[in-house]
């Protein structure tokens, strides 16, 4: 197999805050190949966005990559000068942000912002860039792009803003597209269009996609493999079918149990009790131990390693066998 286009190796990202150091990402590794889609799933605060901002080198001032490598085409971009990074960001690796207003400047029209990107990276003149911007807006399903191109972000609905940002990210045909919850604000027909669009562009340009989402339906649909994150660590990693069919981590399993399913009527949804631990005081042991139905004393004190449970499928948990029994039991119950 070819080398991965992007490989994240033991990434640690920490923030300095008034209350001390926040270890938001604590040893994350994964890789994506050209044309492949990796989903990153996980509770909010688990470090998904920090992971992607680390790759983009867009961390806030108080944040730093404390350890690890980010290899883009084999070159560690975690330490290159900002001037070099500027040629990679947006052109080679582009990102769709979770919150459109972080990417869109409220005082410029949507069009101006996309046009600027295109002129900067693709060397087009203003007129050609404007034409391309309109085409992109049309491609992501914005009605009357000729008019919308001159509107300000606040004049668009939430979903339209999201689409405008997607257009901006795609404007320079990036090799790696990091999409941080790109369709969360969208209704499903537009989501289907955009997912389809991303798949098309992926086929056309061999773009690798890192897709961050909490929608397990979208994960199942879009990705080849997934990394499930919890409390700054990857707790399960593998190809998509193994993860959905044979989950090996109690958090992943709980997640799958919590979502309402279209073909099942339930009085009450299952839910994982409690909330994610505060990253300022992650437990010494397993990050999920305060919510896990299988947790025992050992889980509170020791951190389980990520181990390979079947070829290419990894899980971080001391009691995988017990989980497997539970999963089997409930699957029998379903039938």
């Amino acid at each position, binding site marked *: 197999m070819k080398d991965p286009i992007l490989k994240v190796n033991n990434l640690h990202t920490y923030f300095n805050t008034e209350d001390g150091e926040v270890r938001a990402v604590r040893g994350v590794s994964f890789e994506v190949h050209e044309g492949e889609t990796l989903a990153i799933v996980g509770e909010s605060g688990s470090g998904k966005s920090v992971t992607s901002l680390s790759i983009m080198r867009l961390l806030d001032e108080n944040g730093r990559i404390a350890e690890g490598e980010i290899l883009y085409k084999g070159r560690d971009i975690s330490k290159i000068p900002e001037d070099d990074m500027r040629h990679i960001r947006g052109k080679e690796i582009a990102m769709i942000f979770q919150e459109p207003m972080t990417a869109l400047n409220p005082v410029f029209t949507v069009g101006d912002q996309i046009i600027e990107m295109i002129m900067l990276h693709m060397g087009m003149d203003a007129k050609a860039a404007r034409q391309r911007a309109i085409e992109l807006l049309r491609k992501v399903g914005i*009605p*009357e792009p000729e008019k919308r191109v001159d509107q300000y972000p606040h004049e668009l*609905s939430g979903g339209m803003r999201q689409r405008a940002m997607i257009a901006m990210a795609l404007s320079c045909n990036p090799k790696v597209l990091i999409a941080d919850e790109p369709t969360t604000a969208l*209704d*499903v027909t537009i989501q289907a*269009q955009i997912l389809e669009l991303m798949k098309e562009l992926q086929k056309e340009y061999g773009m690798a996609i890192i897709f961050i989402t909490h929608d397990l*339906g979208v994960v199942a649909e879009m990705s080849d493999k997934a990394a499930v994150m919890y409390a700054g660590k990857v707790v399960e990693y593998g190809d998509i079918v193994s993860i959905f069919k044979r989950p090996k981590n109690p958090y992943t399993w709980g997640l799958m149990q919590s979502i309402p399913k*279209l073909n099942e009527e339930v009085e009450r949804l299952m839910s*994982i009790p409690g909330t994610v631990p505060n990253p300022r005081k992650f437990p010494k042991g397993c990050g999920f131990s305060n919510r896990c139905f299988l947790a025992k004393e050992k889980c509170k004190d020791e951190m389980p390693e990520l181990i390979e449970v079947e070829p290419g499928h990894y899980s971080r948990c001391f009691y995988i066998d017990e989980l497997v029994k539970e999963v089997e039991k409930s699957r029998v119950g379903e039938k």
Partner: protein
Amino acid sequence: MSQDNKKVLLQVDNLKKYFPVRAGVFKRVVAHVKAVDDISFKVYEGETIGLVGESGCGKSTTGMTILRLLNPTDGRIVVDGLDTTPLFLPKTRANKYIHEIYISRFNELKNKYKSEDEVIKNLKDDVDKKYAKIYFEKGSHGLHHEMLSNINEKRKWFRRNMQIIFQDPYSSLNPRLRIRSIIAEGLFTHGLVKSGAEATEKIKDLLEKVGLSSEYIYRFPHEFSGGQRQRIGIARALALNPKLIVADEAVSALDVSIQSQVINLLEDLQKEFKLTYVFIAHDLAVVKHISDRVAVMYLGKIVELADKKALFDNPLHPYTVALMSAIPIPDPEYKKKRIILQGDVPSPINPPSGCRFHTRCPIAKDICSKKEPPLVDMGDGHMVACHFAGQFKG
């Protein structure tokens, strides 16, 4: 299903909300965004009505207009038998409204039926009957008095009973205020507590109700997770003991595991306090789980409205069919046939003629671009606006 014996809590008639589009140096109004364009529906007490549809189709605008956080361009909003529309209009417009919607209509009907009793008998809506009775008994002055007296109390009553939970648990809470102040504000405005001590007690109770520790009362919003903030938003809405809550994407921003906690909470609170929900969301599995009925909007219109089971098992509008087919299924081996709608999403500034879906509808015929299909009851309250309802199966 018989809905006749249920109490209508909210009735929306011919609601329109147009936003002006301005351009040029002088910022002249050059067009209007028809965000909500003539929609009517009823919400029964204690039910959850789901509102779904394409982004920008007017769901939030509908919610905000119902709550009078936006002023409607046209239409009537009746809450618990009270026409609340004129309460928020300037005096002359309020008078004009009462004249147009009631007085001149009642006069016309009286000419037609020749008897006041007949007019009342032939009016369909309870609100109309109520106001007709008052008009015939007490005349125009009496009706104006009925509708516009004690206007401040009525407005307050409305504000108290109609609450909203916002999508964004981050920006919807004032970061500079402690949880106590955030929730207490409404309690004091509406005179629901007499002293600071009483407010504190009540707020502690509310926090426990929504599954937060009462010890959190003096903390700031930034000290909470998204799910916890959403619970605070819910506690704030609940504090005023409302009848109706519009939940605009209230769980969309939450983690799946937290989402199910909050949905369960909303359902528990609904039972306990007989709440009515207008639940706006794009996650159809969630909408299906929580709603009793679901309204599907497209470009400012309601295109289908039905019991959730009827809607999900037997969608009759081509747009609804496409919508259902687009729902991602959390099973990587499940291959479903997806209808990807073709064509641009038309603009609400210049909506297509006839049926607004005709530019993208897989089965559109000639008539569709010429004649607008009305929303009609196909039986058992399953309402559809399509000339060829039920003919597109995907």
